Structures are given as structure tokens and as C-alpha cells.
């Protein structure tokens, strides 16, 4: 049997992961993405696979049982506020909503499904853009995330496939939940490139966080300065990913594709354009083929400019993965724009990349780029030294 190229995990029920109409984490962005891809003819039905619901046993590969019980109770309206607090539930960030356990389980199941499609050899790559909830902790919700689908799926990869997993997180917020989940594990390498935690949530993700015990060196953080633009972002990303692959020699790559590093994003202060989101999956794709016989699982993540940024950024991920990246150029389909125009609270974009004259120019660019280059160098110091020594030992 020849492997098919790529699987897109999605169904309408995934849109139920919704806190409220005013909450910034808005599932409409997933709907917009799917609709855009379908309008382009880039999402044939044989490539679309419905996610399954993760069972408790799978969720508990990472989460604590009593936390899962609390989420279930919360979704049924039976969780007292005092108890909810202990689990990070019922806050403004992660409010309680009806059937939250079922909705969250579907996002987790989607990422596990994506892992299975790839590891069972049915598809080379798979995407579950509803996943990527990287802030979730073992026993606590945090930063819009209830269950940490990526941490669960990576545990799943470890348990059932004994695979070496490289996790690459390009969300503007530090991927703390996934990082701490595998902080002492040398079989899982986490690489997070994000806005510095100086002011931004969650505040962690410093270069000094490198892993602990046997896992020392298997955690990489590249905290970028506020207002970092494409050139510096992509340079740091490219070098870090290439070095991490050479050092770690992964069996499978899991990428978290948060789309909030864009200059229009209301929650962060990075200043990249759509060009960055076009290039991120390209390199991941290439590395998956170089190191992992193509095995690549992509999930979504943050992204709070849901009209102008997220649908395009996520489409880039799928178009790259399915080998149709040539569809992402020039004007966006008018049919898609017409469909959403009246609902959109911001003017919908017309083209796949911003007009250059509309992109703001950041003062102090050379200083920011210089600072980032230094951060990158310090962050990679350890694995570069290890790589050099291992070459010396081999020769």
C-alpha cells in the first residue's frame, strides 16, 4: 500500500471548544480555515478524517485523574467555585462552559488520531488544527487550555511507538505545559520560539530553561524581543530547528502552529507578517523528510486576529503539508471573502501576503535583531558544543 500524502483531522463538533462569544480564543477561525481550503479545492473528502473522542485513559497519560473529574463536573455545572479555582477553571482565561470535557476530549482525540494516521503509515503527515493547547498543566487549566493535547499525544507516541519526538512550538507564547511535561525526558526534545516572558504570559521560556537530569539539553527556548519581524524570526527559527534536528535525530516531528506572532495580533507584541507563517511549515516539512521519513504531525494553537491572520496562517500549514503550496499566492478566492464579509469584524484580506506598503516599519530594528541573534547563540550553545564533540568522538 502506498502511503497517502496528508490527513486533515476535523469535524464540526470540534467547534464546540468555545468559552463564550467574547472570549479571544474563538473557534470561528477554524471554520474560516476549513472553508478557505475547501473553496480552494484543497481539502478533498478522502483527506478529511473525523477526530475520535479521547478516552479517560488516554487523557490520563498526562493529566491527573481528579483534574479530569473536575473538568467533567464543570461541564455539567456541578463544580463548586472554590474547587474550580484549584484547577484553574472558572477564571476569565478558562471559564467553565457546558460539556467542556467532551469538547476538549475531541481536540485531544484529534491530535491522537493525527499521530495514529502517521505512525500506522496510512499518511505521511497529518494536521489537527483544533489542537495545540500547549499551556495545559497536569492538574490545572491555564491560558485558554484545558487538556494539553500535544503533551498527551507525545506521551502516546512514547508509549505505543517508542518514538523520539521533536516538538517545535512557534506560538508567540512560551509552550510551558509541553515543556514541563517532558523536562527530564531525553527522548522528547521541545523547542519553543516565542516573545520574551518579560511582560507576556506565561513569563517562562528563558534560555536558561534547558531541561533537568537526563533531560538536560533537550529543552530549547528562543525568547525573542518584542517587535521582532520576519527576517529575525525566521533566521532564529531556521537555525534552531536545523541544529535541533541534527543534534536530536528525531523519529517524528510535532509542530505547534500558533498564529499569534503576527503584528496584527491583539495579545502579543511580535511583528511578523504572513510571510513568516508561509515559511514555518516549509522548513518543518523539509526536516520531516530529511530526518523522519516524512513523519510530521501539525497542530494549531493561539492566534487572536481571527479574520486577517489565522485562516491564512493555518491554510499555509495544510497547503504545505498536502503539497499544494502553489495555491497560496495572489488573490484570495472571492467566494470565500463574500461568504464571510458581513460577519467579519475586521476587513478581510484580499491577498495571501500583506501589501508591503501596509506593513509597519519597526524603529530600533537593528538592535532587536542583534539582541535576538545573541539569544539564539546562547540558547544553542550547549547542543552545538555536544554536536562538535560527537563529531570529534566519531572521527
Amino acid at each position, binding site marked *: 500500500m502506498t502511503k497517502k500524502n496528508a490527513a486533515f483531522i476535523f469535524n464540526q463538533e470540534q467547534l464546540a471548544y468555545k468559552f463564550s462569544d467574547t472570549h479571544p480564543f474563538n473557534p470561528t477561525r477554524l471554520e474560516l480555515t476549513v472553508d478557505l481550503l475547501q473553496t480552494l479545492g484543497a481539502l478533498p473528502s478522502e483527506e478529511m478524517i473525523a477526530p475520535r473522542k479521547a478516552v479517560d485513559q488516554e487523557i490520563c497519560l498526562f493529566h491527573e485523574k481528579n483534574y479530569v473529574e473536575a473538568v467533567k463536573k464543570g461541564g455539567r455545572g456541578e463544580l463548586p467555585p472554590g474547587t474550580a479555582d484549584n484547577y484553574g477553571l472558572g*477564571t476569565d*482565561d478558562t471559564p467553565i462552559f457546558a460539556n467542556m470535557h467532551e469538547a476538549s476530549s475531541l481536540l485531544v482525540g484529534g491530535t491522537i488520531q493525527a499521530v495514529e494516521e502517521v505512525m500506522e503509515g496510512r499518511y505521511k503527515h497529518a494536521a489537527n488544527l483544533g489542537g495545540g493547547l500547549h499551556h495545559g498543566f497536569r492538574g490545572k487549566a491555564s*491560558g485558554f487550555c484545558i487538556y494539553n493535547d500535544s503533551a498527551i499525544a507525545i506521551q502516546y507516541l512514547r508509549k505505543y511507538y517508542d518514538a523520539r519526538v521533536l516538538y517545535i512550538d512557534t506560538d508567540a507564547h512560551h509552550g510551558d505545559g509541553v515543556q514541563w511535561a517532558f523536562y527530564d525526558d531525553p527522548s522528547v526534545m521541545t523547542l519553543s520560539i516565542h516573545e520574551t516572558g*518579560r511582560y507576556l*504570559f*506565561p*513569563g*517562562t521560556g528563558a534560555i536558561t530553561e534547558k531541561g533537568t537530569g537526563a533531560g538536560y539539553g533537550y529543552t530549547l527556548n528562543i525568547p525573542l524581543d518584542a517587535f521582532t519581524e520576519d527576517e529575525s524570526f525566521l533566521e532564529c527559527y531556521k537555525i534552531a530547528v536545523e541544529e535541533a534536528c541534527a543534534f536530536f535525530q528525531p523519529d517524528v516531528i510535532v509542530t505547534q502552529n500558533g498564529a499569534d506572532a503576527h503584528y496584527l495580533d491583539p495579545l502579543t507584541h511580535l511583528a511578523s507578517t504572513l510571510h513568516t507563517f508561509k515559511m514555518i511549515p516549509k522548513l518543518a516539512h523539509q526536516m520531516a523528510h530529511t530526518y523522519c521519513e516524512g513523519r510530521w504531525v501539525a497542530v494549531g494553537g493561539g492566534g487572536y486576529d481571527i479574520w486577517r491572520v489565522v485562516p491564512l496562517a493555518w491554510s499555509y500549514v495544510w497547503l504545505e503539508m498536502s503539497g499544494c503550496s502553489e495555491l497560496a499566492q495572489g488573490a484570495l478566492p472571492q467566494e470565500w471573502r463574500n461568504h464571510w464579509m458581513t460577519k467579519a469584524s475586521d476587513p478581510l484580506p484580499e491577498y495571501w501576503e500583506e501589501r508591503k506598503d501596509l506593513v509597519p516599519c*519597526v524603529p530600533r530594528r537593528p538592535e532587536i535583531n542583534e539582541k535576538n541573534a545573541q539569544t539564539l547563540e546562547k540558547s544553542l550553545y550547549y547542543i552545538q558544543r555536544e554536536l562538535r564533540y560527537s563529531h570529534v568522538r566519531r572521527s
Partner: protein
Amino acid sequence: MIVEDMMRTNIYKLTPADTIEQAVHMMEKERLRHIPIVENDDTLIGIISDRDVRDARYSIFSDNPLPDVLQKPVKLIMKTEVFTTHPLEFVSDVASMLSEKRINGAPVTVDRKLVGMITGRDLLDTLVQLTGADQPSTQLEVKVSDVSGQLADVATVFKDHRINVTSMLIYPDKKSSSKILAFRIQTMDARPAIASLKEKGYELAGPSIPEWGT
């Protein structure tokens, strides 16, 4: 916070008759910079640092340490004038002592008996905890005038938005006579709180949007 709350009680120690070689091994294995020297009943009588050991061990011009040096007892190189602290001492006072005496750590004693060790690193770890950087949070710095009631006014904003504050520091603004209130708040979306603070006329430090040019 007092010393007792943060000192290490798992202490690596030697007796005066133990050899310098034992000290070398212990320092290397446990990555220590200081080893307290005690009598059999834990009475503290001295301390040796990695520098004392290095000075005794060999010359930089020689590749090999002299074997008879390594077999000498540590009492020959230990310092007997030791700056100690007490479990009930305030952490801030210990920090001042370490800084003033330019030392890196101090034994903690009760009745001259060794009960713990405290080092600069323990203090730094505590500082990280105090700044709240070990919990997922957003940092906001609010500039206020140096008069009473300001903290309460700002904190009310967080209360109104039902945001939990994980840590809070006050420090003087270098450029004016104002004070900076640095909060770590447990939310990923700080926009509503920032808007309320600005509405009340507060100035916020942070990555403000620079003057975009095109």
C-alpha cells in the same frame, strides 16, 4: 521569610581529621564550593572552600597534585573564622551579610551546632519565587505617585476583573520620584485590566506600541 524556610538541611560535612582528598572528591561529586568542618557532635569548628583546596593541591605549573598533600587532614587548611547565621535570621539580613563580607554561603548553627547551609544560589532561587516568575502569569508595571492608597486603588482593578495576583513588588522609579508597582497576574489576556488602568489615568511600562513608521 526566615533562613529556616530556605536553608539546605541535607549537608555535606567533614571532620578535622578527614583528608584533603576526601574534600576534593566531595566537592567534585556534589559540586560544592564550601564544606563545613565539624566535631563528631556537629559542633562547627571551621570551613573550607574550593579555593583553599585548590591552593593546597598543586601549582598551576605542575600537572600532578602531590600525593602527600592529598593525604593531609583538612584541619590544616580550614578557616576557623566562620560567618554563620541562625535559622530564625531574616533572609534579607543574610543576603546583606553575604554581600558585605563578599562570601558565597554560610553555615546555619544553633548553639554552635551545624543545622544547615545557605548559599547565594538559594537566595537567588527565592528571588525568582518572590518575583513570581515560576508561575504562568503576565507582568504589568504600573507607575504611581509615592503617596498612600495607590496600591489599594490599583489592586481594586484586578479584583474587579477577577484576576488573581501571583506576586507583587514595589520599587522606586529611577527617573522620577514615583514608585513602580510590578504585578504578576494570572491571565493570558491582560487587555481588559490594562484598559481599566489606563482609563483611571495610570501610566504602564511594557512593550508599548512604538511609533510605527511605514
